[in-house]
């Protein structure tokens, strides 16, 4: 199993090199920010997509402070920060950066990037999602994106090509769901940290290769020794995003006696529970799946009733013992949601821990973080 994970990791790390080679061959490189930008459309345009989602290091968020308010979340700041520090190998060669416009953090960071003369293209996502005309707005935004991609690449996005990419994406989702299902048993060979990483690898490895690798992995997992013992507290890991490279918190949970048995994150993870239907108008199907069908992201309004209900459902179905809320510093809407969730879980008697990160994982910061996680898991174990 470890070999497959390592291969997938190597494939992810090698992605910038492959993109540069593809660029030399005349392919367009298109970066994108956020799950409301369909990767499938970029593939269908014959371009190479690259998800901008790095995080977990303190320097990149600080690099933008010359231009930007410090009370912005560190993930958004990192998007421009890595480029400003010369640590982003892909952005300098990107032909287009497609950024979803849903929240202020990404909105303003997109403007920093425009000021830096990066080729930003915006896809508007109205948060008041329960109105016919806001769905139309997002649907039209995707149709405009199609035109933009076609113009940029010189390739037509045909229904057939798009259908093929949607099917490939659904195939990855299906395999991730199978692996996710293994987590229903605590004596599981794979933990939540690796599961989140698998999601990340799926963004950076070619889809066909990814499907094959996941098939092999599933086969291996069937015979693999459990990584977690019976009775290990089952944790629901929820929040905004685990960025690529920001693995400290999930790792500490699983190193200190917890098992991330389920996750509920808005970004940096595939929405693997929601396949895009393959019959009919595919762009409309993509828009409907992301905008109307999937459990709303926290920025949507209304969202919190449905999100609390979804968390409660996960708690029950996945036999969750405790919830860890992972929040980024100054992420104001997630901070508000945390209060709501804490109240609801508290009333249901589910232990809840809020952890916040500014991507500062110095030795001084790690000690208290580890202690908090250790004692929380100890307390959950005792209560079981």
């Amino acid at each position, binding site marked *: 199993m470890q070999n497959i994970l390592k291969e997938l990791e190597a494939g992810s790390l090698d992605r910038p090199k492959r993109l540069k080679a593809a660029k030399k061959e005349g392919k367009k490189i298109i970066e994108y920010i956020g799950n409301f930008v369909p990767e499938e459309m970029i593939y269908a345009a014959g371009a190479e997509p690259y998800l901008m989602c790095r995080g977990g290091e303190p320097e990149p968020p600080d690099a933008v402070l*010359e*231009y*930007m*308010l*410090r*009370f*912005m979340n560190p993930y958004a700041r990192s998007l421009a920060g890595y480029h400003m520090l010369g640590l982003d190998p892909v952005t300098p060669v990107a032909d287009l950066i497609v950024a979803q*416009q*849903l*929240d*202020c*953090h990404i*909105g*303003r960071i997109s*403007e*920093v990037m*425009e*000021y830096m003369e990066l080729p*930003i*293209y*915006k*896809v*508007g*996502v*109205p*948060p*008041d999602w329960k*109105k016919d*005309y*806001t769905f139309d*707005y997002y649907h039209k*935004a995707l149709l405009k994106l199609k035109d933009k991609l076609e113009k940029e690449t010189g390739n037509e996005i045909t229904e057939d090509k798009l259908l093929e990419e949607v099917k490939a994406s659904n195939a990855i989702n299906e395999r991730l769901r199978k692996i996710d299902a293994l987590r229903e048993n605590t004596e599981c060979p794979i933990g939540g940290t690796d599961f989140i990483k698998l999601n990340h690898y799926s963004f950076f490895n070619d889809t066909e290769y990814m499907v094959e690798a996941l098939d092999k992995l599933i086969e291996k997992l069937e015979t693999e020794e459990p990584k977690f013992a019976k009775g290990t507290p089952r944790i629901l890991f929820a929040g905004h995003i685990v960025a690529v490279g920001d693995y400290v918190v999930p790792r500490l949970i699983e190193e200190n006696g917890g098992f991330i048995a389920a996750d509920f994150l808005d970004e940096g993870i595939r929405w693997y529970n929601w396949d895009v239907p393959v019959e009919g108008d595919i762009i409309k199907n993509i828009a409907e799946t992301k905008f109307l069908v999937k459990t709303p992201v926290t*920025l949507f*309004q*209304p*969202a*919190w*009733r449905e999100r*609390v209900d979804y968390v409660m459902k996960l708690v029950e179905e996945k036999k969750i013992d405790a919830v860890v809320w992972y929040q980024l*510093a*100054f*992420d*104001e*809407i997630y*901070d*508000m949601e945390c*209060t*709501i969730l*804490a*109240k609801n879980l508290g009333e249901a008697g589910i232990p809840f821990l809020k952890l916040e990160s500014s991507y500062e994982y110095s030795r001084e910061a790690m000690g208290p973080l580890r202690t908090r996680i250790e004692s929380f898991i100890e307390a959950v174990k005792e209560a079981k």
Partner: protein
Amino acid sequence: MNRDVCVEYLKYLAFTDEQIEEFMPKFEYAIPVLGLTEQDLRFSMDEWLPQNFDMQYEGVKKLMGATLRETVDIAYTTEYKKQGVKIVYGILPAIQTNYTAIKEAGGDGVFVSFADHWLLCGLQYLFHKVDPCLEKAEEEGMTYGCRHCALNKTRIGGYRKGMMAAPDVIWAWGFNCDEGPKTDEYINMLYGEGEWPHVISRLPHDTHWGEKDDEMVDRIEFLAKELKDGQREIEEIIGIEVKPEHMQRAVANCQRRAFKAGSLVQLVCKSNPQVLGANALTMFCNIFALPMNAGLEYFEDAVDTMLREGRKAMKEGVGVIEKDAPKLGCYFVPYAVPWIDRIFRDNGVAMTFSTVLTPNKKMMQAPSFEEPFMATAEQWLRMPIGQNMRYEIDSMIDKAKSNNVDGMVMGFFDFDRWLGAHQKMCAKIIEKETGIPHFYMESDFWEDRDYSPQALKTRIESICQVIKMRLEQ
């Protein structure tokens, strides 16, 4: 509460005897609701207002009086509700047009105001006492460390402390920040669903660098649809029909008030010595932006009075700072923390206009559309805060040049992930393009718990020194 102190206070704010008699019952009702004491009134009229505002003007006194009227009316909403009056709130960054149209339609049967703004202003602007509201919201989950907006905290804390009733509906225009509209959902989720009925209108920030937001017809149409749909929902909830003539009257009134605000800004910026301080000037400019239930006609009277007094002072060569003092423009003069303006003046530099609340040339033009929702949508998108950064910068450059300032101060919005996020960058770009020096101050527009006078004094002093040195060169 000693009634004489109340009378004295109202007289200080230019209430006539007749007005005092009429207003007193509500005032006496509101004082304990707002947590005010005799000491607070004394502090306000003996120290806070005279130290920080140009109280020699009748216009400024009336401005304070109009603010007090609105705050008191908000404290009275519980009673209004009992009487069957429908309560409608709104939040920034909405403009007054649709809300005043609702008021036009509903008359005394409907209460319409931006309750959080006016409650915060009443408590902070007049008495420097909004902290208990903020602390209440923080105690109940709006964490201190996350830098949430004081306005949203006032909405939560004010409601929880009984200073304002739950509305029949609040209409939140979430066209700038995310937290404003989400606060209503938050209140509902925390304190009981259905407790805080709200209608939300949103607009994605998806125009590109330099595109003209107010000239993009599809954008105006989408926004108009949001406004029309929002208003329809409000009408259904409160059972009051807003007819086209109400909207047309509201648009015309808003245009008239914008013109008056623009005239006052021009007067102050042209005057030498400067005839009025920036914290009062900016507050006056709210006349074309914010709806009020009780205060709007008094507010307009205050502006008219101030225009007369300002012209007279200009003619007589009388000002609030010495002649030829350097002038600074500001992104948004923090009127709820009025001592900032005072410290600038103590250092011989005058703050003047706010780019946010100064109508630009386009805002003073007649709308391009007759249909009232299209006209309102266009009007909103003409405001710099409704635009992408580059387009907003063009408007800021225009204002900085036309108002002939020696420098600009940015900042004071560290809690706002939209209006506060870009100001450092705007400062850099405008300074580079115009040569006008720009200064950034990290601070809070609404409250001063984090940034005390001691903390900001050094920064202000150094800004003033730099400005003076540049002028001497």
